[in-house]
């Protein structure tokens, strides 16, 4: 048995720069998508938590729509559907919008569960000390809600970054696209897939590790362990 694990390391060395480029694109679009997802999620969670009329119904419909359709379908709809009504957008924008549309609902649910985990009487306790709504939210509810939301939030970030692998369907040259492309061109399937796994791990492992550190930190801050 040789030490090359059946892989052609010269091919891998040649492929690495292509994967690097693709990884940068994946991370860029992924991070942007996640950021917008967080924004959408925060707004939706607040609307739901404070039961703001009309907006509450709209966000409820959005959340169901977003969570119960696959990202691939959402991307197709955005990429091929929107130009039909005169909205033409680039593949990159489509990827970010799609990811934000999908992630928004997941983030909303993560934040909402955190907010709802804080007992309503904590709000009353803050009110009885003369705090207004904004002060109560900032100093009493949010810190407690955060520590509850963090695990779900971290899981969502990882989930969304993985979902970027669907971007290749709208011809974005992300990691998945690059791997499929190289396999199609040179039939070095094992090498191409090996690198695909390695690069996804390079992107996601640090997120995962950072996530668990933050989780531990915020839990300590949250409940004084």
């Amino acid at each position, binding site marked *: 048995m040789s030490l090359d694990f059946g892989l052609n390391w010269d091919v891998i060395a040649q492929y690495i720069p292509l994967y690097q480029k693709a990884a940068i694109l994946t991370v860029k679009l992924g991070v942007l998508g996640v950021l917008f997802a967080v924004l959408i999620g925060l707004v939706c969670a607040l609307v739901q938590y404070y039961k703001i009329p009309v907006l509450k119904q709209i966000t409820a419909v959005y959340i169901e729509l977003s969570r119960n359709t696959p990202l691939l379908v959402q991307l197709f709809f955005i990429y091929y559907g929107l130009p039909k009504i005169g909205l033409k957008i680039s593949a990159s924008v489509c990827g970010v919008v799609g990811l934000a549309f999908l992630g928004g609902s997941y983030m909303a649910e993560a934040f909402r569960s955190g907010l709802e985990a804080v007992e309503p*009487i904590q709000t009353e306790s803050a009110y009885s*000390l*003369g*705090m207004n709504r904004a*002060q109560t939210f900032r100093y009493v509810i949010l810190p*407690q809600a955060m520590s509850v939301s963090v695990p779900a939030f971290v899981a969502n970030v990882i989930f969304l970054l993985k979902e970027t692998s669907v971007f290749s369907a709208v011809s974005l040259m992300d990691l998945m696209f690059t791997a499929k492309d190289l396999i199609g061109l040179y039939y070095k399937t094992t090498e191409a897939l090996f690198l695909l796994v390695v690069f996804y791990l390079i992107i996601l492992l640090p997120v995962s590790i950072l996530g668990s550190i933050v989780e531990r930190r915020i839990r300590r801050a*949250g409940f*004084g362990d």
Partner: protein
Amino acid sequence: MGEPVLHIEHITKKYEDHTVLNDVNLTVHQGEVIVIIGPSGCGKSTLLRCINALEPIQGGEIRLEDKKIEAGSKELAAIRQKIGMVFQSYELFPHLTVLDNILLAPMKVQKRSREEVKKEALTLLDRVGLKDRADSYPRQLSGGQKQRVAIVRALCMHPEILLFDEVTAALDPEMVREVLDVMLDLASQGRTMLIVTHEMSFAKAVADRVIFLDGGKIAEEATPKEFFEHPKTERAKQFLNMFTFEDAKTQNTENE
């Protein structure tokens, strides 16, 4: 008796069709300690919550001095600063230390300096025997300790009136005393207090006036001596009888 501080006039509180408070009138004077007792579900806690506008009322008016207290009013947060409230379940903020629990509202709401409030907080904590727990988190404290912190937290806002909502009901028996002692101390300082409690001997000791609430109405209003020795209404007699098992037993042994 001091000047009137709190006016409760003809208030009505309903949950849909169910009337919880029915035309309740009460005037609380400066320095007065009023104990509200009554069977569960009679509306005692609801009455306290209405005073703080944590519950909206459907009729009547509540005023602190000349300021009307109503849910949704712009001045509500300012008025609530003058009404300290202590809850049965303590409701300390679990993510903050004892000291930060106490400092939060005075610093953020009243914009007082950290040094000034801290000094006051530590003095008060010392007074309730908890100075060495200033840096603890609520979950590291016993129920009685949490409740004493909650009282200090309310005091640091310099309220004109204090509301106590069954503050010993969730405590183990051996911790009840330490909280009641703090409240007796406050009463002797001339604080204006409205206390909902089931501790009858404490009520007897602390109250200037006892309000017996039954079915959402004030059924009886008297000095503690009058109320506990000669209750006028049948309802109050029945209610007080529930607490007299021990008296009955001692009387029996005396007769033998």
